[in-house]
């Protein structure tokens, strides 16, 4: 059994090893951005990230279904065709906390990520690109969350 202590020790070893090689990813060094993940509105989120007001852009794409058969699992994706994106964020406007996921963009990955999120109700889903030049670009799409099954 891998208990909590050995798990921590092991990840510390990995961190040391990667750090020693000068290959430590930024996120592993940085503390988890709790304030960003607790932001209740998009404005609060941008404040927590030290970013400016987002501007809608056709160079950013959000992928999501029109209708979700169940709000517990909604497939969503964020991507951009622009060079110079630093981070891609996935947001659900009407969730208790708006930020679902943040992905670092670097030279080794395509600026295109897909995951699945929980949605408490019908809402806009946003893909936000934080650009190296300080611009904040986004695309959004409304996802309708339906009531399903017998409902009991």
């Amino acid at each position, binding site marked *: 059994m891998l208990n*909590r202590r050995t798990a*921590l020790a092991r990840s510390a070893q990995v961190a040391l090893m990667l750090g020693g090689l000068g290959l430590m990813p930024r996120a592993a060094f940085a503390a988890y951005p709790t304030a960003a993940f607790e932001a209740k509105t998009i404005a609060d989120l941008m404040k927590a990230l030290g970013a400016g007001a987002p501007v809608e852009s056709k160079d950013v794409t959000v992928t999501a279904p029109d209708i979700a058969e169940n709000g*517990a699992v909604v497939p969503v994706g964020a991507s951009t065709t622009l060079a110079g994106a630093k981070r891609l964020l996935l947001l659900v406007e009407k969730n208790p906390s708006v930020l679902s996921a943040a992905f670092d963009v670097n030279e*080794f*990955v395509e600026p295109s990520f897909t*995951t*699945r999120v929980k949605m408490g109700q019908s809402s806009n889903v946003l893909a936000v690109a934080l650009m190296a030049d300080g611009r904040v670009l986004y695309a959004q799409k409304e996802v309708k969350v339906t009531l399903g099954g017998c409902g009991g």
Partner: protein
Amino acid sequence: MPDPMRIRAQAAGDKTTVRVLMSHEMETGLRKDAAGKTIPAWFIQEVTAQLNGKPVLSAEWGPSVSKNPFLQFIVKGAKAGDKIAVTWRDNRGETRTDEATVS
């Protein structure tokens, strides 16, 4: 010990699509149990990936990512036979690393 991930990495030219399924509750901290007690938050906070040991992906997640999470990303410059390792770490400090070979 956390259950293993399922990782698929498929190369097409210069781009390798990596699909990952992780076994995790992703508890939001907002739900209550049958007795009305709040179930504490328990979720993956960080996901990283290495290609042959070189960091290629770094992501941070909140508790609104779905239970048993799915992640897809595209790595540049990988070829068949390369190793993709994925690591997650949750808010309890638990971590899990699994590896797949690019096909």
